[in-house]
Structures are given as C-alpha cells and as structure tokens.
C-alpha cells in the first residue's frame, strides 16, 4: 500500500489531479464535507494523508509516506532528507525581500547591517543574507509578515510572492529575489531504494504527464 502526503490548501486540487492521471483517485479529499485526514484512493491501492504544508517533507522523510507533494519553498526552508522527483510546475511563486514602498533601499545589499528582517522562512532568509555577507537580526513570524515593516518592527521581510497583490495593498515593494518555487513530487529515499516497482510506476506516470504537458 502506497501512502502519499498531500498539502492542504492551494496545492491540493492540482496534486489530486496529477495523481488521478497516474491512476489514483483521491478526489474524496476535495469534498467540502470531508473531515478525514487519511483517505483511501478509489481503487484502494493507496492512502492520502492530508497534512499541513510544512509537514509533508516530515512525513516523507520519516517514511510514513513514500511520496508527497509540496512547494519548493517548504523544501528549501526545512531541508529534510527527501528525494526530489518531479517538478510539477504548478503553485508558482517566488521568495522575495520586500521593504516599505517609501524606503530608500533598492536591493537587499542596501539594507543596513544588523537590521531586523521578519519572515516565516527564517532558514531561507538567513542563508540568503549569509551569502550576501550582510549580518541581520532574524525575527520569526508565523503569519501577516507584511506588518513587520508597517509597524516598524523590521526594516524588511522575506516572504513568498505569487501575484504581488498583498505586498502592494500593504504599501510594500519587492527589492530582491531569492528563488522561484513550484510544487514538487518528493519521495522517501529508503523507500525508493527498496521499491519493487510500485512507486516507480507512479513517479513515471506523473513525470510523463509533465513531458506531454497534459496539465
């Protein structure tokens, strides 16, 4: 029995659609009335675990799920020992540094040393500023990161940007780009090395959709 960890939220619908094309119908998880967190596929050969975004690589790394779908941003932040299998090309966004529109900073390198930077993605942000050789004080927030510069708590934020609307509506402007992110199919490395063909079939089926551009 294959177990797949799927992230609740924005990636769920597309994730379900990719697995449906590979022969595993998890559409039950999309039912508004569904409250189950472990949902069997219609064929009964696999289970889907409905978990939070950040928990997908955890379930896969610990081997409780052989496969999972999660954004590259989450993988980059958590750096769990998982195998990167297929770039699913949906859930596009990018990680960016943003400041108040009225500020004079034009790029991350312009920020003053030891300034405060607020983020949900403190590991990604820390690595970025270390590469810039700019010492900053990281402030970890769990949401509404845009408030950091608005309240004066932080000079800048590092956050995911999809359309840029939230930044604009909160008077913030993007000044640097960390990386581009899309949804990824990931796998447990040990399960992949012990696989007798079942996991490989799913990975190949999902990958072949990518080649055909059938999504």
């Amino acid at each position, binding site marked *: 029995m294959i177990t797949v960890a799927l992230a609740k939220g924005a990636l769920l619908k597309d994730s379900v659609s990719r697995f449906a094309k590979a022969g595993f119908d998890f559409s039950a998880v999309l039912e508004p009335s569904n409250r189950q967190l472990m949902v069997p596929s219609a064929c009964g050969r696999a289970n889907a675990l409905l978990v939070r975004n950040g928990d997908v690589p955890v379930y896969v790394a610990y081997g409780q799920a052989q496969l999972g779908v999660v954004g590259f941003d989450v993988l980059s932040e958590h750096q769990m020992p998982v195998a990167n299998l297929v770039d699913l090309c949906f859930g596009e966004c990018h990680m960016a540094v943003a400041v108040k529109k009225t500020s004079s900073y034009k790029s991350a390198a312009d920020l003053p040393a030891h300034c405060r930077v607020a983020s949900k993605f403190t590991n990604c942000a820390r690595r970025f500023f270390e590469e810039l050789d700019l010492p900053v004080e990281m402030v970890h927030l769990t949401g509404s990161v845009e408030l950091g510069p608005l309240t004066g708590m932080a000079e800048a934020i590092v956050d995911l940007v999809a359309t840029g609307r939230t930044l604009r509506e909160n008077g913030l402007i993007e000044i640097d780009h960390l990386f581009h992110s899309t949804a990824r199919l990931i796998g447990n*490395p040990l399960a992949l090395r012990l696989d007798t063909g079942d996991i490989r079939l799913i990975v190949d089926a999902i990958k072949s959709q990518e080649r055909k551009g059938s999504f």
Partner: protein
Amino acid sequence: MTIKNVSGTKDLNPQQVEENNYLLSKLSEVYRQWGYQEVSPPKVENINTLTAGGGIKSNEIIKIVVDEPLGLRPEMTASIARAAATRFALKERPLRLWACGTIFKSREESDGKIIVDENLHSGVELIGEEGMEIEVELLYLLIESLKKLNIQKESNPTLLISHTSLIRIILEKYNQVIKTKIKTILTNYDLIGLDKLDIDNDDKQGLKATLELRGSPSTVIETLRGIYGDNNVLKSLDNLFNIIKPISKVYNINIQLDPTYQPHYNLYTGIVFQLIANTGKSPVVIARGGRYDDLVNLFGNNNKAAIGAGFSFSIDKIKKIARKKNNNDTFAKKTLIAYGPNKKIEDALEHQRRLHKENQIALIELNICRTKEMAAKLLPKRGCTNLIWIN
C-alpha cells in the same frame, strides 16, 4: 519548577533497560562465539578523532566546553580504529573487537530546534587482514547476529550493499567539478537535479538508468559489466555475493546491490551496507557498516597499510521489530519475603540469602505484615509470584 531531562536523551525505565540488556546479551553471545573481544571506547574524545578525518561533519557532534576541543562520540568506529592503530598496533592481526554503548549526535528537528540524539549501539570491528575475507566474515556475522535477535518474520530484512568504488567507476568520465555534483544527485536520489544537469542528453539518460539500477547482485553486476566493462571491483563483489548468497537464503534475508547507495558518514573506502527491516509502517535501518581502511591508516604512524571493517546495530531500532520477550522470562519467578510481628528483618535477610544461593530472585518486604493474607495482597504490587511469610 520541574527540572526536565534534556530533549532527545534517553531516561529509561526498568523494563526498557531489561529489553536493551536482553538484545545486547544476544548480540554479545554471537560476537564471543566468533572470537571477538569486548572493548569499551571512551564516550568523550578529541574532536579530531570524532570527525574521523572529515568523514563526519563537525556540526553533528555534541561539543563539550573545556580547555581542549572535545566532544561526545557520534559512533564508536573512529575510537576503536584509533586504538587499533596505536596501542594495539603490535597486536597480532586480525584484531576482532566488539563494543556496545550509547552514542550521541547533534540533530536538527523539523522545527529547527537542535537536540541531543542519544542511541544505544552494539557492533564489531575487524582489523588487519588483507583481502575480501574480512568482508565475508563481517557479513556472515551480521546475518548470524540478526538471526539470534529473533526478529518478527514480517519485517522482511533487506541487506542493501554497495561499494564506494562503484560510484567512482560511474563518474570516471566526468570532470572533477561536475563529478561532485553528479555524486550528490545520485546518492540523494535527486531526479530533478539530474534533469537540470548541463550534460549530454545520452549521458543524462545513462545516469538515470544507473540511478534506477538495483536489485539482485548478479543482475546488477552483469548490467554494470555491460556498461563499464569488467574490473576488479565487480569481480570481488561477484565472489562476495556468491559466498554469502546461501546463508542469506537460509535466513530469508533479501540481498540487494545498489551502486548509487552511499552512507551518510564519509568514512568508508570499500564495501558499504545497511540492514533494513520493515516495521509495518515504514522501513528502518537497523544496522550499518562497511570497510574503512583509510580511517585506520589515518590514526596509524607506521607505513604498513591497515585494513578495517565493521558494523553497528541500533538497539533502539531493533526493539521496533524484535519479537516481544515471553512474559514468563521478563517476570521470572520472584519471591517476596515478608515477616510478621514475631520476626525481625534479620530473619527475612537470612531467608533471602538462602534463596539467592539457589540463584533465585528474592526481595524483602520492608514493612512488617501482621498476617500472611496482608503479605499475599502485596505480591502483585511488588511484581512477585511467590510468597514466604515468616512469623
């Protein structure tokens, strides 16, 4: 405020200690039968020893703040290899040594918190003899030890084997810069990284096929021969698998050759392996090992090339798949000696001494029991099966 134990460390209760000791004793029984002698390497070592010449990352070691750079051992091989290359340097080879004890690692949890990871390990090191025989003995001993542990049948153990030279052969044609990148991609099973590699498309397809190449040793060796030609590594692997195949069949252990598997620690310079069992929910690695000639030479101060190989069982992981001990074993006959108002504790101690002489477990009820019935009620509370009430 309650003082809590450090997160990740093991604070075991009596039953857990008993389970650990049971498994350790089963393993040591086999090691002794094979002529291995017990050593007890230090838990605290110099950082240079612990990092094993760069094979183990410094950030995985728990450091101790003293005048010298010291740390807690993350494994026991480096300490034993050092002893073999220094104070045991003049001892007759092969040296057959075994050790058990706790190891400590610094580990980052998924929420970013750094914790101390304490684990109980038991393993052997075989140092000295040239040739493939060292690996044959080691794998035989590993399989025999596993059998002795009496693990659940449905755990379907798999011995996943590779050789550090296989990845070298696969990467031979590439330049040094891209070689390191490809090695990381193959050992991390990174298909996306492989797709993005800036190399010839045929090479990419070839590497993808190599990444998916694993399974029956004879088939994998034949495929590798077809791609890279015959060589000494493939010949010796072929020999090794022919020797261990019969015993693995007897004990129902699936053997799988996986050319792109490389262990987490960069200590090894030859055969590398991990023993994997199924817990029903997920696969777990219950033992790891390999050949580490360079490590022994790192600590040696003579010109004679040294050879070493070993493996280590994780007791905590084995507990997940070991058959539960029979309760009759765990709670062997235990006698409670209680005394009434007309006797003293000295009388009870005298009874206890006699039972101990007969190798029986006997404990004394420290409070006076006025009647035999009162004493009998205490039996389940004290975990005893028999009662002696004196008055």
